[in-house]
């Protein structure tokens, strides 16, 4: 009796063990399959990256041998295409937290340069000395990067290194220890640095996030208390309580205080105030918005009154948008009847009682827009010849536009229609180049 019980129990146990074993093995196989697939994807991206950088170097080298822009153009377009592909491949690698960034930056410079000189430029003159020097520099740099990537590739293949391990190393604390792939990439990165630093003045697109620190502010430097009271006065909330105030750290482009105000109605108002001058950079409060009572038109009037009250005059309302029960208005500075797009500010107004619940003047405060010739070289009529004859121009203005290279250019802005579609076309008022075409949402 007893032994029979034991036989049954042990056979059940054995069966369970076998089933568990089979299940576990299947799980492991499934997991391996997923791991291998992920690893293969990384491998593919990396090999693609090396291939594209290889071709990029060749392409840059070939363009150096050509003289007129017309003959060079196909090669520059090819370079542009390759830089985009390489950039895409590089961004699929698990490298966010590595200083591999600089290589990406290099690729983006190649892209910007080849686009500007090969795709966008409409004239046929040969490259200027400066442009040629840039091209040479890019070529030299590409050789270094290609070599570095090839070295890593060799290493990865010879030692069967896996990208999944890189990811693990990044996830755990070990990334500063020995990891062949990471070390190799750091080396490549070191090579790119020198280039990037010297490239900046001509092609300053790596300043994208620094642009806002350009303009000098007026007024005295304030301490926390002064800044908080300046804010309260500006907001007309003199009896609000400062529940938090802190200084921005050294990574910030602008020295500011971050303030949280606690009002009676218990909705916190977050704001940022510059240390110099106590200017309010932005503020916002996230409060529930009640039933809609006022129109967009009325809301725009409230926004206009708010600006007037705060001495922000000479602005033109250029964009009105509704999101649910709030409206967002964009104002642009107008000087000599020219819209200055880099100097813009935004307001958010509720449609229940017309209160301004958010405000942002980062661009207006910090963006530089002086030192632009404010008289066009070409007439609107001359520039308009560049437009497609099928477009019907409805409105035109003179504007200052900040292009992707962060240069301010004087442009003619045309609002034109074709059938039911509305386009905004910006044509350079100095040389007629097309700066931007936008299909506006209807």
């Amino acid at each position, binding site marked *: 009796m007893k032994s029979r019980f034991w036989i049954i129990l042990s056979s059940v146990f054995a069966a369970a063990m076998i089933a568990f074993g089979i299940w576990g093995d299947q799980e492991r196989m499934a997991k391996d399959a997923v791991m291998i697939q992920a690893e293969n994807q990384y491998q593919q991206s990396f090999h693609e990256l090396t291939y594209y950088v290889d071709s990029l170097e060749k392409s840059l080298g070939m363009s150096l041998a050509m003289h007129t822009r017309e003959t060079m153009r196909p090669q520059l377009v090819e370079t542009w295409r390759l830089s985009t592909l390489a*950039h*895409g491949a590089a*961004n699929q*690698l*698990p*490298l*966010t*937290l590595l200083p591999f960034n*600089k290589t*990406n*930056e290099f690729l983006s410079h190649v892209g910007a340069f080849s686009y500007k000189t090969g795709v966008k430029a409409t004239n046929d003159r040969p490259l200027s000395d400066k442009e040629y020097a840039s091209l040479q520099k890019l070529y030299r740099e590409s050789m270094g990067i290609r070599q570095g990537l090839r070295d890593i590739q060799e290493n990865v293949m010879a030692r069967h290194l896996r990208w999944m391990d890189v*990811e693990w190393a*990044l*996830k*755990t*604390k070990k*990334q*500063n220890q020995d990891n062949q792939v990471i070390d190799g990439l750091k080396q490549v990165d070191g090579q790119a640095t020198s280039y990037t630093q010297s490239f900046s003045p001509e092609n300053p*697109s790596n300043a*994208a*996030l620094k642009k*806002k620190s350009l303009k000098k502010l007026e007024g005295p430097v304030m301490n926390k208390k002064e800044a908080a009271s300046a804010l309260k006065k500006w907001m007309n909330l003199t009896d609000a309580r400062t529940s938090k105030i802190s200084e*921005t*750290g*050294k*990574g*910030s482009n602008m020295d*500011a205080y*971050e303030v949280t105000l606690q009002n009676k109605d218990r909705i*916190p108002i*977050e704001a*940022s105030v510059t240390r110099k001058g106590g200017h309010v950079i*932005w503020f*916002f409060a*996230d409060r529930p918005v009640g*039933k809609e009572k*006022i*129109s*967009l*038109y*009325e809301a*725009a009037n409230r926004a206009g009154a708010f600006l007037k009250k705060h001495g922000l005059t000479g602005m033109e309302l250029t*964009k*009105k*948008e*509704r999101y*649910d029960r709030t*409206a*967002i208005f964009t104002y642009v500075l107008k000087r000599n009847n020219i819209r200055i797009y880099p100097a813009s500010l*935004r307001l*958010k107004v509720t449609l229940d009682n017309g209160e301004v619940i*958010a405000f942002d003047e980062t*661009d207006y405060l910090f963006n530089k827009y002086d030192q632009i010739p404010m008289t066009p070289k070409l007439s609107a009529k001359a520039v308009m010849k560049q437009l497609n004859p099928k477009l019907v121009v*409805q409105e035109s203005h003179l504007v200052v536009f900040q292009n992707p290279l962060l240069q301010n250019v004087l442009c003619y802005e045309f*609002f034109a*229609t074709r059938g*039911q579609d*509305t386009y905004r076309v910006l044509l350079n008022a100095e040389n007629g180049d097309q700066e931007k075409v936008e299909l*506006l949402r*209807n």
Partner: protein
Amino acid sequence: MRKCLTPGVLAAMLVLTGILPNDGWVTAFSDQVITQGESGDDVIELQARLQYIGFFKGKIDGRFGYGTYWALRDFQQKYGLNVDGQAGDLTKQKLVKASNFDAAFVHQNLEAGNEFTYFGGVPLDQQVRKKTGTPNATKENRVSQGRYTMDNLPQGYSKADINLMANAVYGEARGEPYIGQVAVSAVILNRVADPRFPKNIPDVIFQPGAFTAVSDGQIWLTPNETAKRAVLDAINGWDPTHGALYYFNPETATSAWIWSRPQIEKIGKHIFCK
């Protein structure tokens, strides 16, 4: 302009328009000035009336976009009004006089999601193409509290972009105060603008190792309205981080590298840095 119209004159005009053959429908324009960017019933009436007299050829959808704007300006020009592209009292009166508006027809078709036009002089039954399949009951077309709720999108962004960002923000920062959620949204946008990162929103979000919510699958939780609002605020220009590219939670961050980044500020639980 509107000030010089006495209530008496206004009333007389209302009576006059009531007498006109309007299929029994008296003008429903509210007193508000209708301006570009507006949406709702007034815009529907405006578009329908402009279409009736041939100025507006686009879709009657209750959104005052550029198509409506140019049509209204055309109308103002032809009728000797001040060309400002917004429908104030005078413009509305002229428009009501010059056109017809069959509210029942227009609203019925809008609700049913039919494709339709409202040109004057064409029999109404020839202007409707019924929507095949299930009747349209999507949020965009349903009447709520007498208004059409409409999802407007910022220029240059698709609905998919915004939904994806809302997912990421919710997965990353749902426990954070509102400003912290705007900040996370802003970091995503700052990365798109930075040459060192991918150039579009999906690639930035799915870049391997970039966001923990992607790695651990929390990005697929359903985001709430707060996360969506935060995303829209960031897209519309609010950046509480002053241009940050990274952020981390100092309590759980294991990477030594992230601590070496120049810090900007702490918002909620996250430290934002360059």
